[in-house]
């Protein structure tokens, strides 16, 4: 596979399916961690040129909290969890047992807890993938940034940019019903990983 733009509809659907399995596992873990029901929307899989990626995530200047980690080993890829800052604080308030609306500052404890959420989400997502593909995944610890969506995405997409002019974005949205919290989890497989995934899915 030379470029992500070569991926066909059937392959995109297969990728959606696999992201659904991963994200399902992640939603269960998050749900246990927070003691709340967490739902998922239908996954999105799309291929977009870099110049349009800002619009794709609802505006490049929106302020979001992003947790990013790299996966090395057999299946190199990036994983990014993005959520609007207010909603991130709400998640953290639930986690700490505070009245929602208590948190409004990124203290060390908040950052650390946010990274832990990202850790749990990505870890359970990757576990599901590992069972499916029989590969070894070695995720790094997450790093985080609270800033413009475009700035966060730009850096995350660098690795992809070295190979392609398009970004393949596998997106799952987690929804906490009561407050309609939505967070987006992006899986950004490198071409080699993408091939392995497609092979495991039987569509390559």
């Amino acid at each position, binding site marked *: 596979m*030379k470029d992500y733009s070569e991926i066909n509809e059937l392959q995109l659907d297969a990728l959606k399916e696999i992201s659904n399995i991963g994200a399902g596992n992640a939603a269960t873990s998050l749900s246990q961690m927070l003691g709340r029901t967490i739902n998922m929307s239908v996954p999105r899989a799309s291929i977009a*040129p*870099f*110049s*349009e*990626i*800002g619009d794709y995530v609802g*505006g*490049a*200047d929106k*302020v979001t909290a*992003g947790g*990013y980690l*790299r996966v090395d080993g057999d299946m190199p890829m990036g994983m990014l969890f993005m959520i609007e800052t207010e909603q991130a604080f709400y998640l953290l308030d639930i986690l700490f047992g505070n009245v929602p609306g208590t948190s409004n500052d990124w203290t060390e404890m908040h950052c650390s807890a946010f990274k832990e959420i990202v850790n749990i989400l990505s870890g359970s997502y990757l576990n599901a993938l590992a069972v499916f593909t029989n590969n070894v995944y070695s995720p*790094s*610890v997450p*790093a*985080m*940034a*609270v*800033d*413009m*969506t*475009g*700035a*966060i*995405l*730009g*850096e*995350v*997409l*660098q*690795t992809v*940019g*070295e*190979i392609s*002019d398009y970004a393949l974005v596998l997106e799952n949205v987690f929804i906490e019903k009561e407050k309609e919290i939505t967070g987006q989890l992006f899986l950004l497989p490198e071409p080699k990983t993408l091939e392995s995934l497609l092979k495991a899915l039987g569509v390559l």
Partner: protein
Amino acid sequence: MAKEIIKVGMAAFSTAVEPASLVTIGLGSCVGVCLWDSAKKIGGLVHIMLPDSTQARNVTNKAKYADTGIVLLVEEMTKKGAVASRLTAKIAGGAQMFNFPGSNSVIRIGERNIEAVRMCLKRLNIRILAEEVGGSYGRTIEFFTVDGLLYIKTINQGEKTV
């Protein structure tokens, strides 16, 4: 008079003539390179993502790389009537958004982008009038063709015009 604002996406470029302005939103480790011909009031902006096209397998989008992106922008501005020897530059971006413990050179891409942009501008004899680079925060920039000013907005680091 309503002034035209031209949006430039990631790994893209655009040129503009007075009184239009060029905007790029959310520069992280990417670098926004703004070139200006003060006599013709022609401006250009390229939103580069990576330092070096010679490392790439195939270069289909020149605007993605510092080396090819700046050359491309100069060419396009010249076509619009700008004079290459008159061009000056202002650059912004090249931050490091994520800090991994023991991060390697691949992740410190912002710095490499800045360095590559400086080198390329030097090679083309384009003087850098202002730099607003580095740090660990995103920047949104607007470049005005009327006076060559560059407005930089951040979330927590205020805003300024250079």
